[in-house]
């Protein structure tokens, strides 16, 4: 019976993987790009200053400016918000926002401040673009689709991926004995080894990403419990989740209201200093003030970090007394129970915002391994079913379709992303529709790459599309030289590793695709002497092309 079980799981693995493989490839590729979204955005806005010229701001520099600006601009507001530039999370600028009381004329406002003058920065100094954020958002939002459709498609694919991972582990019968096994240049067997290796080597990452991805929309996909116990009222669940402690009057989660008594807001830096003992190694990257200028005012300080039992992401102080808002338990971090901790941990692991540069590369690399796992799986499916050496070149419609979709996606989608970057450099700067058309360039290129293999023999299409992707990536740094002054000749000497790293990565990807194209070519020209050659080639008219 064990053999039958394994066979069933293999069957399930094969067909679930095939069903959604291309969508998953899209999600993984765009999501992986998302780990460097702020770096990508920076590259796509070459008018921004170089790293060395960019002043990373300390709280002492930034917050007096923001406080002064808000005092002038938005006195009497219900809420003030201010953020220091945090390039690691994509905040390039010193920025503020505010919310006036109900009934005010312009209820919401925001501004980007010039760090030298403290005044509102006029006009946008860098080209408008979707940036890296666009690629990131696409991995769960897709594109051209209503949000709700996208969430369901993505959720379905995520669920299928979970199944594929679990069945894959079961199918891989000699997981531990064959852990280090890789036999290259042996046709179908090599593809299977590669697929297994890629899958196993980053398995914890894949399981985490898949499961946490599903949990992001937990009550969309699995609303049964919420419906049964809370009647579908997610707010009520959230309230109960965050504990009764937060709902006594002294605590800032209780509906805070204006007292009407005026109390001038002291310097925010004093409160930033109070955060020192609690967050010894962290910068206060953002502040929110509730009811500035009122005696009930509360100041909330933020930083970006991983939730752990003894760390927090927000500390609050009452302005009138200067004391921490929160009970004794809150001294040790917001304790919302194990379920919430698990959920938050999953989110934080998935997004990886806490990651330093090296860890971020590990995340990026693991994401690329995911793309590789999916790609090798899709290719393995076709290789196993190629018509053997009988001289007949015919393969069924399904097989042909899959072969061509593979080419169009595995080579074509990366080419589309490269085209997105090309569009960023080539589209006119003043054009209002730049961001939309950068996006269109991605999809138009991808569509063309999907259609092209319909007109070519499979083997040629592979080589040509891989070559095209190689060209798009590899030539991008040269396009950069021609169109901007943020190319390698400038960024390397200046030590701007983010921008230089982008160009270098593009070159590396170009080389990778070129190498793959070169490796694929001889296979199509090999003679059928070796029995393990994936596709035997009898020279026919079409292969002579």
């Amino acid at each position, binding site marked *: 019976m064990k053999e039958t079980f394994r066979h069933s799981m293999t069957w*399930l693995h094969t067909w679930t993987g095939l069903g959604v493989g291309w969508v998953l490839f899209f999600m993984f590729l765009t999501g992986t790009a998302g780990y460097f979204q702020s770096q990508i955005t920076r590259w796509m806005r070459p008018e921004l200053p170089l790293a060395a010229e960019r002043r990373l701001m300390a709280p002492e520099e930034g917050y007096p400016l923001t406080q002064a600006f808000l005092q002038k601009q938005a006195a009497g507001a219900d809420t003030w918000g201010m953020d220091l530039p945090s390039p690691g999370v994509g905040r390039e600028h010193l920025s503020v926002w505010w919310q006036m009381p109900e009934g005010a004329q312009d209820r919401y406002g925001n501004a980007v401040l010039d760090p030298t003058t403290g005044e509102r920065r006029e006009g946008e100094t860098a080209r408008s673009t979707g940036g890296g954020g666009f690629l990131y958002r696409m991995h769960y939002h897709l594109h051209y689709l209503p949000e709700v459709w996208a969430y369901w498609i993505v959720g379905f694919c995520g669920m299928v991926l979970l199944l594929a991972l679990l069945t894959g582990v079961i199918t891989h019968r000699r997981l531990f004995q064959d852990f280090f096994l890789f036999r290259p240049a042996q046709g179908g067997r090599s593809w299977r080894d590669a697929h297994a290796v890629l899958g196993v080597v980053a398995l914890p990452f894949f399981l985490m990403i898949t499961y946490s991805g599903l949990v992001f929309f937990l009550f969309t996909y699995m609303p049964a419990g919420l419906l049964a116990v809370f009647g579908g009222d997610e707010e009520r669940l959230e309230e109960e989740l965050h504990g009764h402690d937060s709902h006594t009057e002294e605590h800032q989660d209780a509906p805070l209201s204006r007292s009407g008594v005026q109390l001038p807001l002291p310097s925010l830096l004093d409160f930033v200093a109070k955060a020192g003992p609690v967050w010894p190694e962290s910068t206060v990257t953002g502040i929110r003030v509730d009811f500035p200028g009122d005696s009930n005012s509360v100041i909330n300080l933020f930083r970006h970090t991983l939730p752990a039992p003894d760390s927090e992401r927000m500390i609050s102080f009452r302005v009138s007394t200067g004391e921490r808002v929160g009970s004794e338990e809150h001294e040790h971090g917001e304790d919302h129970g194990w379920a919430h901790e698990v959920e938050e941990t999953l989110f934080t692991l998935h997004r990886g915002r806490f990651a330093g540069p090296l860890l971020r590369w590990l995340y990026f690399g693991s994401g690329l391994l995911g793309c590789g796992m999916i790609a090798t799986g899709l290719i393995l499916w076709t290789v196993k079913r190629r018509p053997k050496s009988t001289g007949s070149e015919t393969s069924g419609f399904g097989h042909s379709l899959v072969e061509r979709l593979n080419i169009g996606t595995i080579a074509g989608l990366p080419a589309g992303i490269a085209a997105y970057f090309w569009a960023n450099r080539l589209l006119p700067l003043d054009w209002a529709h730049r961001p939309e058309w950068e996006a269109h360039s991605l999809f138009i290129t991808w569509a063309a790459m999907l259609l092209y293999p319909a007109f070519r023999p499979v083997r040629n299409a592979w080589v040509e599309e891989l070559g095209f992707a190689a060209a798009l990536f590899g030539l991008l740094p040269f396009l950069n030289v021609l169109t901007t002054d943020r190319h390698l000749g400038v960024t390397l000497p200046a030590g701007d590793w983010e921008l230089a790293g982008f160009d270098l990565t593009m070159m590396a990807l170009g080389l990778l695709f070129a190498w793959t194209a070169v490796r694929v070519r001889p296979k199509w020209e090999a003679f059928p002497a070796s029995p393990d050659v994936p596709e035997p080639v009898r020279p026919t008219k079409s292969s002579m092309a």
Partner: protein
Amino acid sequence: MDSPSSRVPLRRTADQRWSLFFRTLAAVVGGYVLTSLMIVAFSLAWPGHRARGVLGVSMLGFLIYAGIVMWAFTVRTARRVWWTLLLASVALGILITLLKLQKAT
């Protein structure tokens, strides 16, 4: 479709195709229903903090669903899948009704 092997012949009889279709339908739809019922039952029966219980059990839902789908493809006949899911759902339905009545009192 009885014991599918990894090299499935591409041509199947009509019977086999229908069997596969019904099995898949049972797994996807029936499995989801059963998973939801299990979540409801666990949430209602949860002894501790109920919001945490709902959150925690719901998060497990994906794993439960995956398990049910995988199971559905190991059972010998599609018919058996349907019957098992149906019986389990009815049993859970009764349990849930009892739990709700208990809560009401």
